[in-house]
């Protein structure tokens, strides 16, 4: 039932509104609680009887309040809904089929679609229609169930990362059966082959309404490498106005956190559906990029995963002979460099310098001997997965490496000297290559006929030799041998890396062989034929929203289908690991284009947005609760039991006022740095913190009256959160139970001490234990101070500058007197300045002053300037308090003036010199 824009789920409940008048009478009959009144005139009332046995009526406004509350409950229970969805002009009881494309293109509007779906289901529920949900991307047999059942499953529905394939549409169409139903189709707006047939099938069974978002859909094609730059191509479904998009390259930063490594702006020209851009990244950065995505597009189509085709391997080239400058073509590395430079990053340098960079491949061209350290490091690197490629040469042939026993870094033992064939001084013709055997990594490479080998090093015939040979010469002698070492391998080319011994480096085969050895990465995608027979395991797969999920639980994919087969539940877009590389399968293929869906004119197509359906029941019930609450207050007020206003205000004020310590955060850095601010450490003991605050306030006033130091009001410092740099002096009263600061706070404290701050530790126990652990405060001080960067300490010597920075003092009493105070020890070589009463002690300010005299208590004054704590007795006590204040003045002066006072000893000498 609907009333204007409001519909009701249970309209029959509204009948109970008719009971309201009865309730009205009933409520009027119930008397309010009597008010007790003191009234002297009661004597005159005695004997008067109520004329009317009916009680006084409840005030009309209270009745109205209650009526409103009850009405709100009734209407709320009736399930009112604002803007109920009711698309069909007349309510039909036909079953409803909701078809969802459920593809990656739906993911962009998924929340909107889900809301829409919820609305449709809610409406179907009100109309009592059964509903079936058909997701085209994962078609299942139709199940007509109540709308509520589907609504409960709605939260778990996710779009797939693939689009419904032709075959899926076919399957869906075949499952429709003979029943008639109305169809609502939530389309993703992309054209598909089987769509028209499916639409016909739907139309044959009832009305069809299409919901389609008009927002433009963007997708990113796989990234291509060309000339060292990354070529990015973005597609959009409908040509439209100029649109700027940003493509982000994401990858782990050096700390392993995923970050945007680079961004590229691209522009769709008006009327164009494609935008391209080129992104040039340093090789290091490019190797770290794991995905590209269009910013702000949260669906799998806007993501392009990268695979090994973008990665360039780091190859270190090391030659044994570096003494042949000028003969470029004879350089052992020349052909390697030419072969690898387009597809790999080359590193040159000494082996010891390169190993820490952990290159993927190290090529040793005719390197025979390695130092022991180099050898062990290289072995370790190889065992950890490195690929060591060695080329033979005159040096290797002449050396004794791997002669009698097999070298760890050589695949085979070598015969001395090698052999030369087909030369001027030898018999026979240069040898050519034999076809590669099936288990060779070079299997299938075409053999150019002009490759000849005229010299080689020879392998000793060992039992393992046959397994290790991966390329033969035509006479059966090994050309390339390979041996696994740990997780890595060692490959030996039995010829030189230049054209001295063979024409192999001159041929294209050389490059292909290097590629096959994964020394250089292939820039192109492999063809489906190349992958035949291999199985690729999904490592990570994309979900519909373009986020990567773990793919380890999914079954492997046959290589021949990996490249070309349409995506589906069996082949999800993601990253696949194969035998020797990783391949990314993206939503959009290299040449794919997006085409918008075009619907026949006889189908209703509507947008996704519509008046929101708002259930009002909750609001109404809440209003009823509020009204009933107001009724309670009103009833109390009527019977005179409400708290008097003043008491209530007092109560509320009491609740609001909570004690708090004034924190340093309240004051800004500006004000803190503008004036000298004394600070104390928050210990967590409120009383102690208050005392420290009052103490510093008292010290501040003393300084204000007696010196030119005019400190700002003291602040309490939270070591964990506050910046300490503003405070010249930190008063730290020790409390046995105070928490230990975090490591971060200690780092801050050490920094503070190193940069000229001073901490005054006060155990406040009169130093009864002389800083042994037998006093709880002393023990706590030891624990607290142990991580601090504190120099050796000594009791304040009588000639310490602290005794004379402002007042001349010999002891430093607080509330307790006569205990030693410890400061940074003087260096052992400190000497008494000539004719001066004190030595030239520390050049700087002592970073800590440690004592137990409870200074803050002696300094503490209340807001009127009256001392808060007793010190000693009578006049002697006042004298002690005065001395405590003087100590405070001296301390602050010491902090603020540094070694200035200490340097005063030299003034006579300086004046003396100036005079001369």
């Amino acid at each position, binding site marked *: 039932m609907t009333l204007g824009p409001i519909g009701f789920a249970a309209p029959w409940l509204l009948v109970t509104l008719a009971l309201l008048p009865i309730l009205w009478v009933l409520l009027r009959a119930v008397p309010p609680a009597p008010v007790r009144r003191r009234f002297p005139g*009661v004597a005159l009332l005695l004997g008067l009887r*109520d004329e009317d046995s009916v009680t006084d009526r409840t005030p009309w406004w209270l009745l109205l309040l209650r009526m409103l509350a009850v009405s709100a409950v009734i209407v709320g229970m009736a399930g009112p809904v604002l803007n109920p969805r009711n698309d069909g002009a007349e309510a039909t009881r036909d079953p409803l089929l909701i078809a969802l494309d459920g593809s990656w293109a739906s993911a962009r509007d998924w929340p909107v679609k889900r809301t829409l779906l919820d609305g449709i289901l809610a409406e179907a529920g009100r109309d009592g229609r059964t509903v079936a949900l058909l997701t085209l991307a994962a078609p299942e047999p139709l199940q007509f169930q109540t709308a509520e059942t589907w609504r409960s499953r709605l939260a778990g529905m996710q779009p797939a990362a693939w689009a419904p394939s032709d075959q899926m549409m076919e399957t869906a169409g075949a499952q429709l059966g003979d029943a008639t139903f109305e169809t609502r189709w939530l389309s993703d707006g992309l054209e598909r082959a089987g769509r028209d047939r499916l639409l016909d099938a739907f139309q044959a069974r009832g009305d069809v309404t299409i919901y389609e978002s008009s927002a433009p859909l963007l997708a990113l094609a796989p990234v291509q490498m060309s000339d060292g730059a990354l070529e990015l191509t973005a597609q959009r479904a409908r040509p439209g106005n100029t649109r700027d998009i940003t493509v982000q390259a994401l990858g782990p930063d050096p700390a392993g956190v995923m970050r945007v490594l680079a961004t590229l702006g691209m522009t769709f020209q008006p009327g164009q559906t494609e935008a391209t851009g080129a992104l040039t990244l340093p090789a290091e950065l490019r190797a770290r990029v794991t995905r590209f995505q269009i910013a702000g597009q949260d669906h799998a189509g806007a993501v392009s995963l990268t695979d090994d085709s973008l990665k360039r391997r780091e190859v270190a080239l090391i030659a044994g002979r570096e003494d042949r400058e000028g003969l470029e073509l004879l350089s052992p590395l020349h052909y390697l460099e030419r072969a690898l430079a387009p597809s790999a990053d080359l590193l040159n340098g000494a082996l010891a310098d390169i190993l820490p960079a952990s290159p993927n491949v190290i090529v040793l061209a005719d390197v025979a001997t390695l130092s022991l350290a180099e050898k062990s490091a290289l072995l370790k690197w190889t065992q950890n997965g490195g690929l060591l490629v060695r080329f033979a040469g005159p040096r290797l042939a002449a050396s004794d490496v791997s002669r009698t026993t097999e070298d760890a870094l050589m695949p085979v033992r070598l015969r001395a000297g090698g052999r030369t064939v087909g030369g001027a001084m030898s018999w026979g013709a240069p040898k050519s290559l034999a076809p590669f055997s099936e288990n060779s990594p070079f299997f299938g490479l075409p053999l150019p006929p002009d490759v000849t080998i005229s010299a080689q090093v020879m392998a000793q015939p060992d039992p393992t030799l046959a397994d290790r040979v991966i390329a033969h010469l035509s006479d059966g002698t090994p050309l390339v041998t390979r041996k696994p070492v740990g997780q890595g391998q060692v490959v030996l080319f039995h010829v030189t890396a230049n054209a001295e011994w063979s024409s192999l480096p001159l041929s294209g085969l050389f490059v292909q062989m290097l590629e096959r050895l994964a020394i250089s990465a292939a820039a192109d995608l492999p063809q489906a034929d190349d992958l035949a027979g291999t199985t690729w395991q999904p490592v990570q797969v994309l979900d519909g929203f373009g986020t990567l999920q773990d793919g380890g639980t999914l079954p492997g994919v046959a290589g021949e289908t990996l490249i070309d087969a349409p995506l589906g539940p069996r082949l999800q877009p993601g990253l696949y690991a194969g035998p020797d590389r990783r391949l990314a399968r993206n939503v959009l293929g290299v040449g794919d284009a997006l085409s918008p869906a075009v619907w026949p004119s006889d189908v209703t197509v509507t947008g996704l947005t519509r008046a929101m359906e708002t259930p009002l029941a909750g609001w109404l019930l809440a209003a009823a609760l509020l009204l009933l609450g107001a009724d309670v207050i009103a009833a109390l007020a009527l019977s005179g039991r409400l708290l008097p206003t003043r008491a209530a205000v007092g109560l509320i004020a009491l609740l609001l006022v909570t004690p708090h310590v004034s924190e340093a955060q309240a004051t800004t850095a500006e004000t803190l740095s503008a004036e000298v601010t004394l600070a104390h450490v928050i210990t967590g003991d409120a009383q102690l913190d208050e005392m420290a605050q009052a103490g510093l306030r008292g010290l501040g006033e003393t300084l204000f009256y007696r010196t030119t130091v005019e400190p700002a009001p003291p602040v309490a410092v939270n070591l964990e959160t506050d910046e300490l740099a503003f405070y010249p002096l930190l008063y730290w009263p020790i409390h046995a139970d105070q928490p230990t600061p975090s490591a971060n706070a200690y780092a801050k404290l050490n920094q503070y001490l190193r940069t000229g701050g001073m901490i005054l530790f006060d155990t406040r126990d009169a130093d009864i234990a002389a800083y042994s652990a037998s006093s709880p405060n002393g023990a706590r001080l030891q624990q607290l101070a142990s991580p601090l960067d504190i120099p050796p300490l000594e009791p304040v010597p009588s000639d310490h500058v602290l005794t004379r920075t402002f007042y001349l003092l010999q002891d430093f009493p607080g509330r307790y007197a006569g205990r030693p105070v410890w400061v940074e020890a003087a260096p052992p070589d400190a000497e008494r300045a000539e004719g001066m009463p004190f030595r030239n002690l520390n050049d700087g300010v002592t970073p800590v002053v440690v004592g137990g005299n409870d200074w803050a208590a002696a300094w503490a004054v209340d807001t009127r300037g009256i001392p808060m704590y007793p010190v000693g007795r009578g006049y002697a006590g006042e004298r002690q308090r005065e001395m405590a204040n003087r100590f405070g003045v001296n301390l602050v002066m010491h902090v603020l003036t540094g070694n200035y006072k200490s340097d005063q000893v030299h003034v006579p000498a300086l004046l003396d010199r100036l005079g001369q």
Partner: protein
Amino acid sequence: MTDAPVILRSRAEAEAARFPPLLARAEQLAGSVLLGEHGRRRSGMGDDFWQYRPVQEGDQRRMIDWRRSARSDAEFVREREWQIAQSVLLWVDGAASMRFSSNKALPEKADRARLIALAAAVLLIRGGERVGLTGSAVPPRRGQAQIMRLATVLTQDDAQDYGVPEARGMLPHSRAVFVSDFLGDVAPVRAALAKAADRGVRGVLLQILDPDEEAFPFRGRAIFQSIGGTLAHETLKANDLRDRYLQRLADRKAELATLASAVGWHFHTHHTSNSAQSALLWLYRALSGGGVR
């Protein structure tokens, strides 16, 4: 509490300061009349000469002042000024019912009653009268010290719920001032007035009422309790009782007025919402006997 008499006195002094000295009117000359130092400003018994007047019929021949008559042809009678100190006895209700005020802004009835009574006492004493309390606690005396004594006794509260007029210790032919709300039983009042009339005492009934007692602004279900808690009355509809309550109050006032006029007393109702001065003014005029019914 120790300050209460002092405060009460100072406030009473302040009230009294606004009036000319009040001289109680003495209508009765009887044996109890004691001569005071102030003349009554009319002819009567006394030592001071007041006036000569022509002899009228009924004057005894020995009343003729022959010295004055010899200087003229007519015969004159020499009159002397009355010189009397009148005793004024106060009774101020200190019962629990007087300790009521409907509003924090208003004083309690007892407070107002004491203030007015003491102000009157101050005026009277300043005029040379002797003021005391009924009963035996403070017999009538003159002088500033008596004000202090009065103030001390007046500030004492009474425990009972409704006050009963104290009619003992009234000197014959003296004046009396009864201040109360007169909401309790009216019989003791009647008895007291009868006793006073027997002794030839004339006086004033001053009824002090709270505005709420006059208006009865209550609604709904209520339980009314007396201040002392001895009486209670429950009603379901207080607003229904209003008319009848007001009728009873009016009856009570009428009864008191009738009672007062029967024995030659004055009756007045004062509300605490009005200024104390208006009540004192009325009291002044009532005691001075001018034009008050």
